[in-house]
């Protein structure tokens, strides 16, 4: 198992390097630069600023210098926010995304699994149909429709909750709800399908024949293997949710990574965009590894070699 983990970690190095090369090339290929503004700088002053950020060197030299900094854990200075490093920006935004994403994730998994299991156990009864219809709606209505509707209802009409920002626990309610909704719906559907399949399998039939209580049957024996598709979905989903939801953070004006990403791209804040791409791909790679390890816990047939 340790060897498996180590070899997987080693294989991430070329993947990450490739990501860095492609991202670096793409960010620089975009027209316009970080110091462009409607108020143009005198050309000699602009050249001096560019030189101060090392932008006057040939591109390949800049790349070598950037990777050199990365190896020492330095993501570089932000090109937009003077006197601020990319690490500082990420350190400020990461907890916000982690909190909102983490809460949404917990709600998504707990509710999604519960709803999916309930629906599976009541297959083809009215409760199954109601739950699956609602979850279908949850999947198909995008975040950017749900979120403004929630703001309109709870923040503007009823004035129960703040419309935006992150100053009190109350301001977490709407974004977490909006973010967890599609997740609950998706997990519920996955869970229902896989639970139905597991319930039909041989070992469950055997257990049932031996006269086990239905609750024991479901919670002790059927639940674990049914979670496998949910876990595969969760790998990339966790990465996406924890590194910030672009839409939710924009609508609720949360100072998280998603909003940083958008602003970074629009402002041509080269180092900030690069830093976020690296962070995101690292999280994706790590989560995929975690998922593979969790398979082993859920399914005794999985072996690592």
């Amino acid at each position, binding site marked *: 198992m340790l060897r498996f983990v180590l070899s997987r970690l080693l294989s991430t190095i070329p993947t990450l390097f490739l990501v860095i090369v492609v991202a670096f090339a793409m960010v620089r290929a975009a027209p316009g630069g970080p110091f*462009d503004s409607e108020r143009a*700088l005198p050309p000699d002053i602009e050249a*001096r600023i560019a030189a101060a950020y090392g932008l006057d060197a040939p591109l390949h030299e800049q790349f070598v210098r950037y990777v050199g900094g990365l190896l020492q854990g330095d993501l570089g200075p932000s090109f937009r*926010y003077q006197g601020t490093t990319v690490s500082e920006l990420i350190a400020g*935004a990461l907890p916000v995304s982690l909190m909102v994403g983490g809460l949404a994730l917990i709600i998504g998994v707990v509710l999604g699994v519960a709803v999916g299991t309930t629906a599976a156990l009541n297959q083809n009864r009215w409760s199954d149909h109601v739950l699956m219809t609602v979850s279908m709606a949850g999947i198909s209505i995008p975040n950017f429709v749900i979120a403004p509707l929630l703001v309109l209802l709870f923040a503007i009409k009823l004035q129960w909750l703040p419309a*935006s920002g*992150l100053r009190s626990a*109350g301001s977490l309610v709407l974004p977490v709800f909006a973010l967890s909704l599609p997740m609950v719906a998706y997990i519920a559907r996955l869970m229902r399908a896989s639970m139905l399949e597991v319930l039909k399998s041989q070992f469950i039939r055997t257990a049932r024949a031996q006269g086990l209580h239905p609750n024991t049957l479901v919670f002790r024996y059927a639940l674990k293997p049914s979670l496998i598709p949910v876990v595969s979905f969760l790998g990339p989903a966790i990465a996406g949710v924890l590194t910030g939801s672009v839409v939710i953070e924009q609508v609720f004006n*949360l100072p998280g990574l998603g909003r940083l990403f958008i*602003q970074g791209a629009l402002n041509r804040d080269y180092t900030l965009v690069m830093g976020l791409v690296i962070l995101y791909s690292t999280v994706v790679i790590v989560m995929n590894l975690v998922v593979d390890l969790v398979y082993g816990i859920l399914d005794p047939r999985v072996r690592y070699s």
Partner: protein
Amino acid sequence: MLRSLLVFLIVLSLAGCGEETDVARDVSTLNRGLSAAPESLDPQLARSVPALTVLADVYEGLLTRDASGGLVAGVASDWRLSDDGLRYEFTIDRAARWSDGTPVTSADFVRAWQFLVNPSNGAFYGELLAPVTGFDEIRRGDSPVAALGVMAPTDDQLIVSLTVNQPDFLERVAMPALAPRAKTTDLFNGAYVVKSTDLSEIVLVQNGVHASLPDDAFATVRYQIFEQEQTELAAFESGDLDITSRVPRSLLRNPGKLESTLRRAPYLGIVYLNFNLREPLDVRLREALYLSVDRDALATQVVGRGEQPAWTMVPAGTRLGDTPYRRFQLDVAALGIDRRIQRARELVADMESMPVVQIDYASNDENRVVAAALQQMWQTALPGLEVKLNNQEFRVVLSQARAGEYPGLVRSSWIADYNDPQQFLELFRSGAPGNTSGFANPMFDTLLDRAAALRFPERRQQALNEAESLLHESFAAVPLYTMVSKHLVHEHVVGWEDNPLDLHLSRYLRHEAD
């Protein structure tokens, strides 16, 4: 049992929410919207509108602005200009203090101004000090920054030597870039000090040692940053925000019950199209295009938020110091659109073929409708003409415009830093950084130089009018309309005065007493 527990829980959660909104409605806090996070809060390095808005609250220059945007004494209690107009002597108010209680001295201004002109600091607003002696040599790298003509013989005396009479110099002095610079960056000399700052909000609290802060001023000013105008609007509607930084187009068309909070005022800004004069279209066609824009329809119906049709590059409301600037008047402005179209058709009648004309613009709501309207107007007025629209992201358009890489016209806009007509005409100086049309006329440049050095408004007026006329005859640009400042200001905030610079220092605002 279970049901009553559920009801109890719901009631409890609602009660909790009620408390939260009460906290947000704290009357001692002013909640203002900002359209982007400031790139810097260093007065000498910042250049964006959001940054300048916050800086006006936390730093004060020799002169500052009153509630209506007029020039008033700031750190300087008095100033005198020598008879030849080349030497300013400012007297620093002895009561002026940094937020730690130490006095603001003339040396703090010398430090700031030397920092500003130092080419290695890359300060955008360095050009504000171009009329000060020594500036050119320092910028060329021939002299040290100490050669700048600004001296502090005593702690409360600042002497500035100019190379030319610069009639707008006091306007420049009121800019945040010319505010004093403390020895450390955590000191402020404005009515407020920065308490905390991140990418979502900037919190200011009163500067306890500031002399002229009224008793009923807000104790705290919270600038909340909204990149999305709809999000900002939602925050205003839910009561989280007292003043917005802008107003979405959709709301302006139909403000409904927000009508009473809507504040619109003429703004010293202009929207125009630049022709690319590096590969110019036929001058007859340029004039025809200039003539056949139905500016009234554009300003009142297409954008329709109080914008005024613009025929020249200088908006109405500009001033030459104490006197209003009389803009260069054009006969064609008085003609109806039908007569103008007729004249435009005559101009292009003997052109062999009509080229395809392309308008490049940055993607946004307003630009899109304006471009579509222009396309319609031009294709109808000039049969055979094909107008192509090309929209791209803001920075893409900007960098192509800068490089002169656009085939026909590019949508541009400009907002003045302070009230002077030259703010707009300098855009067309040969080789100026903002000169995207590539217009170059030595006569025009000379007129601008002359105007910049003339002290008497009448003479300046004449020189600038001549420059305006020269610019117009070259058809380097198509002015479209002048801008309007737009905010939502909650009724419980009083002291807000509309002004053409759209400057509203928080110290003049207060909560309406019940």
